[in-house]
């Protein structure tokens, strides 16, 4: 007897192919339904995977949307190099929205030279979305990153103030992604919603994707601060009692250089990183993000303001 509908999961399908196919489907669906999409590209591993998937979804044609980097001005040079290299390889139109410009124009207050600009990015991002009239923005966020992200739809509605309201999310049935909005509103689209950090690395290894070199173990001067290893350089100077040490580290995430921690690691190849991530007992953000440690709902609060 065939009593009720078939399963949502296809038996026997390789799980990376299933995740990849779902992501390609979302990319195509949003491009078909929305007028002016954009892909948010930070130069980190998730947005690198997203950009690769976008190229696959529309090949042999080029990308049907531009790529937007919200630049905090607190960058790792390896990441900027990678950003430019990746965009050039695909012939993508790269837009850069600078937090510094938002500060200069008085849209946000200057938090000081060595303070994190992570939270300020929301204003720069929303201003860029309004300026270009984007009605859909692809992001590389994953639900396994954070408890607020775990609640978010694949297509996540933003009102005219760019706000996410977790109490009033649109129902999202099956894979019927419904992205139309009224003028001034937009949706965020997250094709990697169901991917875990391990899935991302397995996929990077399978596809042999190029990434910024800081994702792999290397020696660098670091200081221990707030339980994290911070890279000493332009944006992080040792404070009074801190001792600068040279350690073998790599980065698990890439964010504002003032607040993104490195992890001690000897993983120099893709295969070694996959093995390290599979065995990790601390989450990606827990190990590396200063600003998520101090408040219980920091991600939710930032998302309500329009963060990625």
């Amino acid at each position, binding site marked *: 007897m065939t009593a009720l509908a078939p399963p949502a*999961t296809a038996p026997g*399908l390789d*799980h990376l192919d299933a995740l990849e196919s779902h992501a390609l489907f979302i990319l195509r669906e949003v491009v078909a339904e929305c007028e002016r999409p954009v892909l948010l590209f930070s130069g980190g591993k998730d947005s690198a995977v997203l950009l690769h998937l976008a190229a696959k979804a529309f090949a042999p044609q080029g990308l049907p949307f531009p790529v937007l980097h919200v630049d905090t001005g607190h960058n790792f040079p390896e990441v900027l190099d990678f950003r430019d290299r990746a965009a050039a390889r695909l012939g993508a139109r790269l837009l850069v929205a600078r937090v510094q410009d938002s500060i200069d124009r008085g849209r946000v207050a200057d938090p000081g030279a060595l303070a994190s600009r992570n939270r300020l990015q929301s204003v720069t991002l929303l201003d860029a979305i309004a300026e270009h009239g984007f009605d859909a923005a692809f992001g590389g966020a994953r639900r396994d990153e954070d408890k607020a992200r775990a*609640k978010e739809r694949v297509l996540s509605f933003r009102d005219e103030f760019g706000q996410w309201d977790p109490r009033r999310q649109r129902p999202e049935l099956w894979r019927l992604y419904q992205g139309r909005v*009224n003028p001034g509103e937009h949706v965020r689209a997250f094709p990697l919603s169901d991917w875990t950090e391990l899935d991302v690395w397995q996929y990077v290894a399978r596809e042999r994707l190029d990434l910024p070199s800081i994702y792999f173990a290397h020696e660098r001067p670091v200081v221990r601060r707030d339980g994290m290893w911070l890279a000493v350089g332009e944006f992080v100077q040792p404070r009074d009692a801190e001792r600068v040490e040279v350690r073998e580290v790599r980065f698990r995430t890439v964010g504002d250089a003032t607040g993104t921690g490195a992890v001690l690691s000897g993983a120099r190849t893709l295969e070694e990183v996959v093995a390290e991530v599979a065995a990790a*007992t601390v989450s990606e953000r827990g190990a590396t993000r200063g600003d998520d440690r101090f408040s219980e709902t920091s991600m939710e609060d930032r998302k309500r303001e329009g963060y990625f």
Partner: protein
Amino acid sequence: MPVATKDVLRLATVGSVDDGKSTLIGRLLVDTRLVADDHLDAVAAASERRGVGDLDLSFVTDGLRAEREQGITIDVAYRYATTPTRKLVIADCPGHVQYTRNMATGSSTADLALVAVDVAAGLKEQTRRHLVIAALLGVRALVVAVNKMDTVEWSRTAYERVVAEVGALAAVLGAAPVVAVPVSALYGDNVVERSARAPWYEGPTVLEALEASDAGAWERSCGARLPVQWVLRQPGGGRTYAGLVSGEALRVGDAVTLLPAGVETSIRSIRYGGRALDEAAVGIAADVELDDETDAGRGDLIATAPLPRVTRELEATVCWFGDEPLELTGRRLRLKHTSRTTPVRVRAIEGLLDVGSLEVADAEALATNEIGFVRLATAEPLVVDDYREDRVTGGFVLVDEASHATVAAGMVGRPPFATARR
């Protein structure tokens, strides 16, 4: 090292508020050591701050500020877990009636419903509603955690009463045979660790039941379906049609019909991410080339026999989520079905399903969170299967033309359990 490919099971928690769904998922993840150390520390800190003990397990999934303040689940939380044999995608759903739309969101992509029932309270109205919605959405497999066994001194009689109640309803709804487990999510009995408190129970733990479920198996009853999402222009002038394969795998050489036009042709080639395939499995975002020139575009469907039907009139089941009632002369709506969106009118409201009695009553309107049967007329033809044959070509949503909010989940056809009682 690269973890071998594992079979994926998508599950949604189902049941009334406070019967212990979130606690059960928290317990499952904590006892399998699938919660990161820093996340567990954060749950412990949040529990202490709110004065709810050392570790409120529901906080593993209840991550919003309002959820923790009120001690409830408002929207679905997704968690990903890998056991030695399986990958689990877990949707922890809310129980309150006003969040039914979120529960439907979480269940619509599930293969299995993990039902929590408070053994002392028995099968509540809201649990019945959830079971009915899960059945309508085609979730066939049920694992029932008869929870809070600690509050009834592990009474076998109390357990068996709940199992009988749920089993009877599941049978009427046409679900697969129910697997029931007596548990205490709070204390961790029979979730991951086998309990010594119920020596009379010899069945699986919740984790074992999830690992053993054959929810992925399915006898196919319709052909291959490829709703065209996007047309890709190939060098040299050819075109390929991109979409996600459903129903059955699609093979090179398959005789296919392009619908709604009715053009008969065959598959010349299949590509996936730039490489050629002989066969595209269900769930693959393939692009295909046809043997004949067609003017296929987004919204069309490529299908093998038995073919879906082409229609502008639908008999359908809807779960209504709009804030205002669904009425014949109500707000303007459009319908999204596969990759096609069309204006739609409600021709008739043919009945309202009483989730308690499963009887169908006459109705003029459907209020928020009510389930009913409607006749719809669409401006453009749709290519549909009955929902019970294919979730992709049988499911649709209704969207409010003014706000663009999604206001209903729709399924082509009627469930047999409701019509039988009319």
